């Protein structure tokens, strides 16, 4: 308790000096709201992938890299998939946030609700936060769950 009192006395003077000198001053920054979206890239093309990052008996993660699609910072990777390569009916999408300063973007999409030891075919695309597609041309790839 004595130690506490000593600390109280010692710190009181320093804190008083500090605080009485700063109250009422103005901060150097003010907040801005979310910035307007960047202008969209003319073409969004895949530079790496798409490929299977990981899988287990019921889910998978698909990964690819494209040039930065720009547009809204809030973005989604989209995987269209199914067991028949000519009839891809299921859609999975995962949220990412673009980095305005990066020349390219890594997309990763989690696909859940899969059947074990089953081969799935898929294509990929990306889309803005409001649902506007980026128009990525994707090959059809496949993976098999465990």
């Amino acid at each position, binding site marked *: 308790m004595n130690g506490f009192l000593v600390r109280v006395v010692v710190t009181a003077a320093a804190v008083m000096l500090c605080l009485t000198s700063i109250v009422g001053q103005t901060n150097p920054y003010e907040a801005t709201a979310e910035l307007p979206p960047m202008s969209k890239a003319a073409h969004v093309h895949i530079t790496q992938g798409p490929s299977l990052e990981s899988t287990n008996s019921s889910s998978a993660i698909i990964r690819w890299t494209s040039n930065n699609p720009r547009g809204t910072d*809030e973005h989604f990777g989209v995987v269209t998939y199914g067991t028949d390569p000519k009839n891809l009916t299921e859609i999975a999408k995962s949220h990412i946030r673009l980095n305005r300063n990066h020349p*390219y973007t890594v997309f990763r999409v989690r696909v859940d609700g899969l059947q074990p030891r089953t081969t799935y075919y898929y294509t990929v695309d990306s889309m803005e936060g409001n649902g506007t597609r980026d128009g990525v041309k994707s090959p059809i790839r496949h993976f098999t769950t465990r």
Partner: protein
Amino acid sequence: MHLKSLSLGSIVFLMALGVAMITHGQQPPSTVYNPYPPGILPTDINSELARVLREVNFIEAEAIRQWHAIKPPVPTGNPPILKDTGVASVEILGKLMNFDKNISPFNNTACSSCHMPYAAFSGPIPSVNLTMIAYPGSEHFRAGKRTAQRYTYSSYFPPLQYNATQGAFFGGNFWDSRATGYLLRDPAAEQSQGPPVDPLEMGNPDTACITYKLSLAVYRPLFEEVWGKGSFAISFPPNTASICATPNGAAVFGGSATPVALSPEDRTKSNNVYDHWAQSLSAFEKSLSVSPFTSKFDAFLAGKYTLTAEEKAGYDLFRGKGNCNSCHLDGRSTAPAPTNLGAVDTGVAADVTPLFTCFGSANLGLPKNPRDSIYYETTPDSFGFTPNPAGFTYTDFGLGEFLRSGYATFASPNSSWTQFAPTSDGQMQTSTARDVALVPPQCTGGTDAPGPYFQKEFFHNGYIKSLKQLVHFYNTRDVYPFAVESGHCPAGTVEKVTCWPSPEVPQNMDMTVGKLGLTDAEENQIVAFLKTLNDGFTTPYPDINTYTGTCMTGGNASTQGNNTILSAEELRAGAGARSH
């Protein structure tokens, strides 16, 4: 009709309490509420609560001296401006409120009891941060469900808005953004209106209780100088003191949200006082006493500090390979490409405010933390209040729950937002990275073992115990996923190192992170950079020297706190075994 029912309720309330029960300044009969299985409540909880209360009282006394040291403001002109010392007055008023324990029902809990300056105005008790993660309220030991968020820079968040272009929510305060700022246009102000009446926190039964207690506060003259002489011209009923000394949720209130019977006119006045309480606290939070922009990083931006090699490497990873600044915006106009870390940074000016947040929300896929106190508060306390009847089945859906006006959150003020609840489930606010590493100065090792370190808690449920773990989680969440609960990682793995239990909310997982490909050394470099965001480098951080507890030592940052992990099954089996 409404007034009549209120009066009737008051009579019933008085009868229930009895004439000999409570007078102002006394505490009602209460027994300790401890529904927790062994291992949840820290063994030093009582001494630590007492320690924090001493520190709170010390800072309150300091604030009183500061108040008396400034010249009273002079209302001038019309609209009336509090000339010369108006800004200082409202900021100090907010500080006086923040450290006032008498606002709580049992005069034992201030706002700052969960938000102390040496922890960047977040949780001040290392053992609570290590175990139950939520802080005990005025009624011991009711406790909430989430970690205490830092005040720092929270007042810079804009009012919650749905941005249709981005298809996402931005702004608000609290982990679930439920303090929207829809009315006061200041989320931080509306945030401060929550805990005083949250039954698991301060637990006042009526917002009028805060008005009543402010009318008795030693700093009432300052309040009236700032907000008007007639602020407290309210006829409080004789039973106000006894009502306000009984915690919210008590069965005796019969579910009433307004047990203090006020006339409509007085209720309006009281609501105005409560708004002014909120705005004063927000003024304090936005002041240089809390959010001062005095970090190494600010000095770096001003060209007055050169980052060390470790800090610079961490910064380049933060905005490069780690991609942290996609959400924790750093305000620089350029960044090294992930594949070209040696690129010259030509950015010299901030292109956005460097608040290290995008004001948005994300579901990072954190595992459920079975140590969270909320899961065990399934039995009634001595006031007949049961905090969480759902027990372990409770799931924290964050923003989605709020948008539905769901369980243990605010009502949503905008029904058009409800449609976005399913795509917002699991999302929690992206806090600023500023001051994430701020600790008492005597804990020279920072937040991480081997220290000497100050045990903090990270993210909304405190599952993460060190900054090393925090970065490692972002880096490897999808590298080491296991379909298990905490405490059940397979043999041969180490939880939080090579095993991440299942996410509490699997939908809407953010995939910006999860497999970043950072090396162990690179993780450490990002931690080194995060420390440059601590305020107090260019100017001492106010009141940071008030910590009188001890620092911890030993162990390593990767497994910090792992010795406190308990089996979820074991905890569930123990839950309910004890009662109040």
